[in-house]
């Protein structure tokens, strides 16, 4: 089910700016005085850039640190390389925590290997921002992104994609009538021992935990704990098990994972709860002291532009937050969905320690 109208739940979860929106607008005014794209961006094939393209080609290399699947990163970088064959691309792929540990240690030791970093958890992205890890670079393509999808002031990070979580189930084991329709239905005891979630290291799981508490109260997860959910590090494990009948339903089911498995013909169906899909952005930005600065800027401009966003959706089934980019194959545009993400990110971030403690208990780690 798809929604075009968006509800504000308890005034804290939002999709359209309200009170917080005013603050954002003010921040934009202040921020815009401090950072802006260059005066005459150069028009390339499908995107604009403020990078010195000749210098970028002279640099001849570009390195990305990412949490994305390797095959997808390779496909995406191959497209960039095809457009700029003089720039050799390379990447390192790790899980978010390992990537951040490596990145932090490198910066602490003043060893600069990476040009652009993608982080899938806002905690890491905000921490990196606080520690001055991002270069301030306002891409001309950032104009296509709403203020709430960018750092304030602009120039540190931007939402390169949005990852959404709903509910998924195996239709061979669960009929359409039996299937959950809402987040509240996930508390039904019939899902005991047959529901999966993600671990406490998952930014998406933190967001789901936070949003459900706002929607349904603090005891939502206490009731959910009685179902003895199994926690996994990755959506691949969740979907593998459900497709194979070892579990029946997935709570915090990643939308891109559903599209990927559906495209392969796996028996899986998706539920878009009326209260909304939990949304988690991916944060992209140029790293300060990047060894190939112009190549980094050029890549970011290309990536945030239509060609890069389109390629990203094709390679990884991710949704772009840009309205002028088609959705991934088999999917729906993000703007047509009701998305749940915090109005006040700081308040959300402050709950992280509590979330980890509670979630580890719910999933049996503590």
């Amino acid at each position: 089910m798809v929604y075009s109208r968006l509800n504000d739940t308890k005034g804290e979860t939002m999709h359209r700016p309200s009170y917080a929106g005013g603050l954002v607008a003010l921040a934009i005014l202040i921020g815009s005085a401090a950072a802006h794209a260059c005066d005459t961006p150069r028009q390339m094939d499908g995107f604009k850039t403020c990078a010195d393209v000749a210098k970028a080609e002279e640099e001849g290399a570009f390195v990305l640190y990412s949490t994305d699947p390797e095959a997808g990163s390779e496909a995406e970088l191959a497209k960039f390389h095809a457009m700029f064959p003089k720039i050799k691309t390379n990447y390192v792929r790790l899980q978010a925590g390992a990537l951040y540990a490596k990145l932090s240690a490198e910066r602490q030791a003043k060893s600069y290997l990476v040009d652009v970093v993608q982080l899938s958890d806002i905690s890491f992205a905000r921490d990196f921002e606080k520690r001055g890890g991002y270069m301030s670079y306002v891409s001309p393509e950032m104009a296509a992104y709403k203020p709430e999808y960018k750092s304030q002031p602009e120039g540190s990070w931007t939402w390169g994609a949005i990852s959404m979580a709903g509910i998924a189930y195996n239709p061979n084991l669960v009929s359409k009538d039996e299937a959950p329709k809402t987040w509240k239905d996930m508390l039904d005891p019939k899902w005991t021992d047959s529901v999966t979630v993600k671990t406490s290291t998952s930014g998406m799981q933190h967001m789901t935990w936070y949003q459900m508490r706002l929607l349904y109260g603090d005891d939502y997860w206490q009731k959910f704990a009685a179902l003895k959910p199994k926690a996994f590090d990755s959506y691949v494990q969740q979907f593998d098990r459900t497709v194979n009948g070892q579990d029946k339903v997935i709570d915090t089911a990643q939308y891109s994972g559903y599209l990927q498995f559906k495209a392969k013909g796996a028996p899986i169906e998706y539920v878009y709860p009326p209260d909304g899909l939990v949304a988690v952005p991916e944060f992209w930005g140029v790293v300060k002291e990047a060894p190939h600065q112009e190549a980094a800027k050029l890549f970011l401009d290309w990536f945030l532009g239509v060609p890069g966003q389109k390629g990203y959706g094709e390679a990884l089934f991710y949704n772009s937050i840009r309205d002028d980019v088609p959705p991934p194959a088999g999917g729906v545009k993000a703007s047509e969905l009701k998305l749940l993400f915090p109005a006040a990110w700081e308040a959300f971030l402050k709950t992280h320690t509590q979330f980890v403690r509670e979630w580890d208990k719910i999933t049996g780690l503590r």
Partner: protein
Amino acid sequence: MPLVVLLCGALVLYPIGFLIAESLNTGDPSVFPPEEFGLDNYTNLIDDVHVLANTALVSCIATVLAVLFGFLQAWILTRTNIPGRQRLERLMELPYYMTPLIGALAWGVLLGPKTGLVNQAWRALGSPVDLFNIYSPYGIAWVMALFEGTIAFVMISASMKSMDPSLEESSRVLGAGKLRTALRITLPLVAPGVLSATIFVFAEMLGSFAAAFVLGIPGRFYVVTTAIWQATLSFPPDYGRAAAMGLSLFGVMLITLTLARLVLRHGTYTTITGKGFRPREMDVGRMRWPLLAIAWGYIIVAVVLPLGALMLTSFERFATVILPQMQFTLANYETALQMGSVGPAFVNSLTLGISVATIGVPVIGVLAWIIYRSRMPGRGAAEYVIMFPQAVPRLVFGLGLLWAWINLPIPIYGTLWLLALAYFTVFLPLGLRTIASVVLQVDPSLEECARVCGAPWVYQMRTVTLPLLRPGMVAAWLLIFIASVRELGVSIFLMGPNSKVIAPAIVNSWLSSSSELSAAMALIQTATIFVAVAIMFGVARRVTGVTQ
């Protein structure tokens, strides 16, 4: 001589120092060096008592099984005359070629509740319940034992190959049966090999991650390493807790190693003496067929079944064990082979494997001699230090290595040089335990004769000691080579954009892409190692003129 010990000791203690500092860090984990110190990370381990107990349970069961499998197979393949021994020996190594995480995945395919292939077959016979549930502590121990059984086999085989068969023949001549001979003669004489294997395998089990990660979490069963994984990868990262947990395992290993040294001190295990011998197999008569069946049975369970499960998965459009759902494709292999990073990653892994094993084994051989043969002061302490990396889970030690080496003003971070140094450091225990089991079998009088005749130490080592240690050194080379190619925990933190290796790519693929792609990559990795080992042993035989 002391230089070798000092160098190896420094390689181990330098990153350990960083880990100790972090384990005492009670302030911001991102700040280096730590600014607030305390024992909270250790006292808080009381909250993780159930995790420590789980770890102990699984490790003990898995160690007993692994050593049992290893001993039995080693005895059958090196001391008896069953046909096809050499082929079976090569097959025994196969489980070790595979990245353990993917091996655990294969067992999930076979013995997963409700839908595992074996359980499906069992239910098709009319049973309402599953035959096995691999997602349990016993399932984890089973899988760990099958993979580490290879190490136990290689270590114990090296000892058995260095045994003078006349000792067993004497027992038989005096009327003892084959079983009594095996238990009363063979087993005591290979005690160093068995003890070395037990210590190493137990330490390996304590720090084992893959099986517990794949098979434990679905059963809500956590061990130290999965708890460490959570601690290091969450935000804010709890490196202090992870370091404290990892270092606390060293206490357990310290006790194990001390007990083993006490046992070995109170016996003589020399089997290689001045009297020449030629290794000969025992004629087991009609028992060769049941023993052959046991040997092949183990191979089928440990090698054929999991490789078969992986092969099935690797050809599927999406990983499933439900027959009507299966759809087959070559796309996973196409993707794996077309990925630009896979080729260089394989080349890097093989290069590292060959270099680390080739340079490391002679160094470790000298180290083993120093610890067990010399009178150098502090050699006992050196053994404990060298074994340290084995006691600490690889993910934690990898963090220590990252912090240690990235802060040195030597530009090796992000290069293969750093990976080589790191691999050498973490595989010191593996090499030492393998070679130590053979060192203890060499009669000291052989070396004494050389010295009495005027041979300098280097000449004695080159012409007497190292040739006698050859079975152990060949075994150590093989194990270190394979371990380097499939190394994961250290590689995650130390590899750079131009120094990628294959194991993280396979695991990343499983975590973020698909099981079927990672199965394809794992099988390519296994085949590559198999071919590489076959080529290298073939070349070694031609060069030395020695048959194995």
